[in-house]
């Protein structure tokens, strides 16, 4: 099988490491060769962060380059726009509608573009979006918005739901398990309704 590429993008501190671990575990359970590449250090301090997940029969490079990603999962609307160049022709963006102003916008040195998601769609790009933060709050914690997004993504990937459930059980501490399972379901339902 040809190597597939997923990118997880967002703002430092939004929980992309858990998201990449979840996907990594799902893929490993399918018997794929998997590489997950993370960002640590300076970039985590509220900056733009990116994680790469690649899988297939044999994965060499751990990084995803422009025009290579089959799916881009974005935790924040502007980050979807920032990384869209990495999307393969015909690929999908799965994004939260949440907006976080970067410092140049806060300071008035730059403008946050209006209706980012609408504009991406108008460019002919496949975008699935949901207010992951709001759904996560409904599920019980704003911190579970990463798992809501995993629910969205799961509906765009061909793996049975049980593998996702297993991965959540492997990656989430028991006391937060129910909350995260609920967050996942809410994300997944959201796409199935849109479809």
């Amino acid at each position, binding site marked *: 099988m040809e190597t597939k590429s997923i990118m997880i993008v967002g703002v*430092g*501190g939004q929980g992309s490491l858990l998201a990449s671990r979840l996907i*990594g*575990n799902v893929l*490993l359970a399918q018997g794929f*060769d*998997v*590489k*997950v*590449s*993370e*960002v*640590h*250090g*300076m*970039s*985590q*301090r*509220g*900056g*733009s962060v990116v994680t790469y997940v690649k899988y297939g029969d044999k*994965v*060499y*490079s*751990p*990084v995803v*380059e*422009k*025009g*290579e990603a089959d799916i881009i999962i974005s935790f924040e609307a*502007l*980050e979807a*726009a920032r990384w*869209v*160049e*990495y*999307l*393969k*022709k015909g690929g999908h963006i799965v994004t939260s509608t949440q907006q*976080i*102003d*970067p*410092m*140049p*916008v*806060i*300071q*008035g*040195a*730059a*403008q*946050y*573009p209006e209706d*980012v998601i609408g*504009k991406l769609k108008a*460019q*002919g*790009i496949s975008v699935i979006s949901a207010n992951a*933060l709001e759904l996560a709050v409904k599920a019980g914690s*704003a911190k579970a918005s990463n798992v809501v997004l995993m629910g969205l993504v799961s509906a765009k990937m061909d793996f049975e739901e049980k593998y996702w459930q297993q991965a959540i059980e492997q990656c989430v501490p028991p006391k937060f398990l129910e909350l995260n399972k609920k967050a996942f379901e809410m994300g997944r339902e959201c796409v199935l309704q849109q479809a």
Partner: protein
Amino acid sequence: MKKLMLGNEAFARGLYEGGCTVVSSYPGTPSTEVTEAAAKYDEIYAEWAPNEKVAFEVALGASIGGARSFCGMKHVGLNVAADPLYTAGYTGVTGGMVVCVADDPGMHSSQNEQDSRHHAKASKVLMLEPSDSQEVKDFVKKGFELSEKFDTPVIVRMSTRVAHSQSAVELCDRVDYQLKPYVKNAAKFVTLPANARKLHVTVEERLKEAERYGSDCEFNRIEMNDGASFGVITSGISYQYAREALGDKASYLKLGLVNPLPTDIIKDFAAQFDKVYVIEELDDFIESHCKKIGVNVIGKEIFSRIGELSQSIVAEKILGEKKEFDSFAEPVPVRPPVMCAGCPHRGLFYCLNKLKLNVTGDIGCYTLGATAPLSAMDTTICMGASVSALHGFNKARGEEAERNTVAVIGDSTFMHSGITGLVNIAYNASNSTVIILDNSITGMTGHQQNPTTGKNLKGEPAYAVDLEALCHAVGINRVRVVDPYNMKQCEEVIKEELAADEASVIISRRPCALLKYVKHEAPLKVNTDKCVGCKMCLKIGCPAISVHSGKAVIDETQCVGCGICTDMCRLTAIEK
């Protein structure tokens, strides 16, 4: 059993399986997780040392004492440890000694982009370079054997993409390594000139032997592909990029032992092709060697010495292929890293900016104080340089500088190499003002303990250095402590100490807001009846505050209620 592991976790697994018992390191991205993961194995004694030089010497001492030992650091850390490294090349080891150096091409979290292979060459020790997590574990484990076989420390060179990528690793059992008996051997370990002259002869012989070994060893391998029209010589992460971009179109000589580089295998491989490329990140280390031994290769004439490589760069430079992609139709504002909401450094840096001071800075989260709107840092060089450079700056410019220049340095960085600079200030009597930003943790690398925090690497209680007493002991009479959440106090104390006629240390003390034990206050709210949208509150550069539709807005998911912003608002519009 196969497990998805970070390169750095696989490194620690290699230490475990290789029978390592003593680990001493200083944290530094992208190397930190090696030591954190090693500390989780009960069989390994692991510690954070105050700096890389100490860590290296601890590991060397353990090796002399008969154990298999390890020390880890980032690329610039090896500069700090270079002194013992270069002589350890002469003394060699007793138990195997493995050193991790993690390079950061692309400078994701570093102040320079140095290529550590030069250190291996200059110090004449062996260097291995793995390409993925499985190889990391294998190379580390075999690195101990290699260290003992060639009687030298072995450096395992990591890079950001190998260190911070997870891939599958097959777990094995720990080897049964027994502590070697200690036998005094002054001719080997006492590097008096008379001994060192003999040792240098041994070192040169060892290098020749290792070079021959490199042409017939498991670390260097050839992958021939039928119909390949050209050859590629590569190593480390560059191998992965080359393999992905070029596939079966090329044959490969993949080098795992990168110092010393072999001769015969390179000549034999290259002789089979009309065209041979060297694909390596940063400097022309392999390429220069090839050219020196008369092998004609193409390298830096098409590849840059700057930044990371990738499969796209390889495909473009060698095959002329480029991928298509869509761009967002409008400019996308950059999102640089910032000090977190509630960061104790913020209030202090606001004062430095307000007082328009010159600031010699250092390495840590607080380097972000250089960015707008705080913009309160003039220099960042290396660990500890804030303190020593301040002294030099003041000696050059005299009283005018002494009245308006300060150094800022974090608690961990001060322990690392700020102390000696402070000793110099006291000893050579400059009227310098040093601010220690004591947030009770090593922040930037992800919360590691250090000698000031009262805990060791394993989280057990440890002696905490008394910073005030230490400063007094080296000869600083004026030592003041401020709370950076109290900006009025900070400003007053900074003014007083700059005006004083002798050297001072100001300790700005408050724990990092991200520490689990730090209690957060309820998020603050903006009273929209009072707020006039003057944007004064934006001057502290808090990521939780923005202005929308003419009124300040506080993001309650980020705000930790530190209250710095309330001091900025003259209309008291920010409320609990």
